[in-house]
């Protein structure tokens, strides 16, 4: 890299490029270097929003929400997209839900499940007198039908989430009993997601695997129409058990994938709610009149995954990659030492995202000091470790990354940041679908990858790092970690689980197959035209009980 500091020389050179330098002449003359905005700022405190005050909102009206990605199938069994959950929120209630403190609370159930002492029988009491949007009653039998579908349908996205379920039975009309072959602690949290959405058996009968074309569940709103890549409309459901709490008549989800355009829609008032605001837009939106920016940590993480054993593709036994970075944990640890997470978050996201060092969300009950332990930034130690490992310095490493602007900015900042620690990072941008293909085949050295996150740590770790895990693209295999994860998953003692996940994180740091970098924050914009919009750490904008401001 060439460095030139003589200002006059620069000006002389600039003058040569006459045509282009014109732009400079238009703007301000000489100014000193300005400080980067808000040095070292830690993310602001959480703003979850507040429930609607019945006195402050009117009955009726429409809310338009700008949605950052198009949902996939509106079928709780088949859906795989995070964004589909936004839409499900208004029309498909679940057995359990989250509150703003990320605690699990009953929704269609009336209480948390009772787990037998051996952990193999889970009993769920159901709300009574609930009707689906088609008017048919929801009872224990419909819950069983939903479970059956989730467990047996080919291509079900829920099968693996539900764990070792052997059978599900209805006891009377308002109790469901789930039988397991092994204790499975994450079950309740899974039932607070799509696996817990109860579908109308009548509609399932009629639509079969096309249920997503006209989904029928229990919810404050019911499905009205969908225009591909444009919008999804839901209308107030008079059959809903708490219909008097619903103020709006109609909600339109409008898909707008560009963050800046979403922000523009919020400002012009065309949309009243917009999710996933860009950190580039957040500062100005916070200052904009009539717009509130809700702000909470997400449950997911973004990080770097190394290929340590994926030689023959996802789903096959790990092999021997044969490069220093794959074989020698010291090289990966050196990489972790080389990354200045704080600087990364500061530069790329204006300090608006949080630093992350582990897959365990600090906002859940499963967190602990050990689970949040962090390797400090130390480029000298990184170089020393590389030296010790006896590898070439600077160590050349190729990173594949998705070719969207945010990933590329991150990659470029990372490239600059790790140079000091002795790494020569080369960025290889790959188109999204091809990227999935490449990572599954193990055709990469290092990969920038994230996960939208779930409450239970098991959902954030086991798939990615246990031997043979469904998404273990790293090809990582450590019997000791596997054993820890199994103990943590099957333990029914909360305190023990917390301790075990602390140990899990320690074990991950010792080998660093994944280096966790940062956690996104959910920035959701809401205009003053509506009130009662809330966003919890699961990121889903809760708009069902909002209303137009009086």
């Amino acid at each position, binding site marked *: 890299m060439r460095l030139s500091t003589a200002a006059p020389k620069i000006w002389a050179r600039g003058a040569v490029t006459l045509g282009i330098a014109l732009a400079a002449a238009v703007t301000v003359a000489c100014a000193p270097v300005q400080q980067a905005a808000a040095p070292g700022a830690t993310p602001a405190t959480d703003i979850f929003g507040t429930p609607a005050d019945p006195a402050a909102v009117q009955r009726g009206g429409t809310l338009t929400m700008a949605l950052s990605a198009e949902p996939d199938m509106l079928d709780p069994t088949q859906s*795989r997209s995070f964004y589909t959950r936004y839409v499900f929120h208004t029309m498909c209630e679940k057995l359990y839900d989250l509150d703003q403190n990320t605690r699990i609370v009953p929704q269609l159930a009336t209480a948390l499940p009772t787990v037998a002492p051996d952990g193999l029988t889970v009993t769920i009491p159901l709300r009574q007198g609930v009707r689906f949007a088609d008017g048919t009653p929801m009872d224990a039998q419909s819950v069983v039908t939903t479970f059956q579908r989730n467990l047996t349908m080919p*291509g079900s996205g829920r*099968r693996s989430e539900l764990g070792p379920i052997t059978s599900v039975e209805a006891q009377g009309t308002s109790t469901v009993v789930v039988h397991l072959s092994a204790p499975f602690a994450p079950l309740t949290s899974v039932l607070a997601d799509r696996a817990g959405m109860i579908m109308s058996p009548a509609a399932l009968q009629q639509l079969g695997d096309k249920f997503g074309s006209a989904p029928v569940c229990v919810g404050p709103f019911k499905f009205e129409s969908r225009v591909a890549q*444009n919008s999804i409309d839901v209308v107030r459901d008079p059959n809903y058990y708490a219909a008097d709490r619903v103020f709006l008549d109609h909600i339109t989800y409008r898909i707008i*994938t560009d963050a800046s355009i979403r922000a523009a829609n919020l400002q*012009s008032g065309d949309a009243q709610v917009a999710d996933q605001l860009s950190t580039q837009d957040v500062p100005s939106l916070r200052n904009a009149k009539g717009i509130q920016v809700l702000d909470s940590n997400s449950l997911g993480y973004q990080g770097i995954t190394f290929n340590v054993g994926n030689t023959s593709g*996802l789903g096959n036994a790990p092999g021997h990659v044969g490069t220093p970075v794959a074989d020698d944990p010291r090289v990966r640890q050196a990489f972790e030492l080389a990354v200045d997470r704080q600087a990364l978050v500061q530069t790329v996201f204006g300090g608006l995202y949080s630093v992350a060092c582990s897959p365990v969300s600090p906002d859940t009950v499963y967190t602990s000091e050990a689970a949040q332990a962090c390797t400090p930034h130390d480029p000298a130690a990184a170089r020393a470790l590389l030296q010790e490992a006896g590898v070439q310095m600077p160590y050349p490493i190729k990173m594949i990354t998705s070719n969207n602007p945010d990933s590329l900015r991150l990659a470029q900042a990372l490239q600059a940041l790790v140079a000091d620690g002795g790494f020569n990072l080369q960025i290889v941008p790959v188109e*999204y679908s091809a990227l*999935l293909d490449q990572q599954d085949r193990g055709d990469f050295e290092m990969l920038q990858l994230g996960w939208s996150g779930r409450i239970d740590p098991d959902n954030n770790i086991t798939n990615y790092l246990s031997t043979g895990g469904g998404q273990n693209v790293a090809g990582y295999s450590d019997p000791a970690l596997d054993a820890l994860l199994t103990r943590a998953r099957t333990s029914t003692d909360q305190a023990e689980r917390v301790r075990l996940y602390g140990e899990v994180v320690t074990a991950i740091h010792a080998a660093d197959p994944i280096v966790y970098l940062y956690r996104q924050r959910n920035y959701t914009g809401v205009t003053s035209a509506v009130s009662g919009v809330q966003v919890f750490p699961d990121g889903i904008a809760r708009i069902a009980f909002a209303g137009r401001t009086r």
Partner: protein
Amino acid sequence: MRSYLLHRLWQSAVTLVLATIVVFLGVRALPGDPAAAFAGEERDPASLAAIRERLGLNDTIVVQYGKFVLGALRGDLGTSTRTGIPVSQMIGTGLPVTIELSVLAMLVAIVLGVTTGVVAAVRRGRPAEWFANGLALLGLSVPNFWLGLIAILYLAVGLGLFPASGFVPLGEDPLANLHHLVLPALVLGTGIAAIVMRQTRSAMLESLGADYIRTARAKGASPRAVIGRHALRNSLVVVVTVVGLQLGILISGAVVTERIFGLPGFGKMTIDAVFQRDYPVIQGVVLVTAAAYILINFLVDIAYSLIDPRIRVAGAQT
């Protein structure tokens, strides 16, 4: 004329079949798997296999193509692998948007382009030409996604004159529909207006310099008559060609405009489908695009032969 039409029809059919085969093979040659693209971060080997089976991706390519053709002949283009929405329904909602956008943009382009083109040619060397030329050059030199962004920032958000994005179907509320389409049509139209303007200008200059115009002038025809009746009419042949060409491009590629303005159009659908490896959607979209393009060219050819009968003869010979 009839044999000419038949000949053109035959050519069109061949082009259409070729296009579907190229696309069918092409999308399958892309790295990436529709099942993985659908499952995204929630994929695992077992469920990927199940999804592939459900999508019929385990059949041989010949069987898959056969199913596609048989389905297409019955009007069934399959369902989107991602959303489960029938492709024909997607096209049914997407195509009218793009057609409307294209027609409006073309209207903008023709009105702006032909007027400024004629002015530039007739007022050669005067300030009017400079002005018209300058406008056209600007139109040619600005990337239209940038223009769209500026328009949203200043006209929609800043001044609140137009909606920043979104779409209302024509049948639902014609006024709101138009209101939503003004900005996109302007943005898409100006770039093409520049091309139309330049074509008109050069065609006009060509005609104005031609012998028969000189003759008409020498015979004492008024300048207005020379320009209107003779030069412009002749220049329109060129303009129609260009318009036809651009229409094809418009239909197949209003992608960026649609994306920026959040219009649920055809172009955006196409590009998203490719990113998602949504085979049925890509196939359906290309089939319809190719058909539309061929139809437009067909119509342009007919328009041609109406404007200038000599072309019919020349065309029939090829």
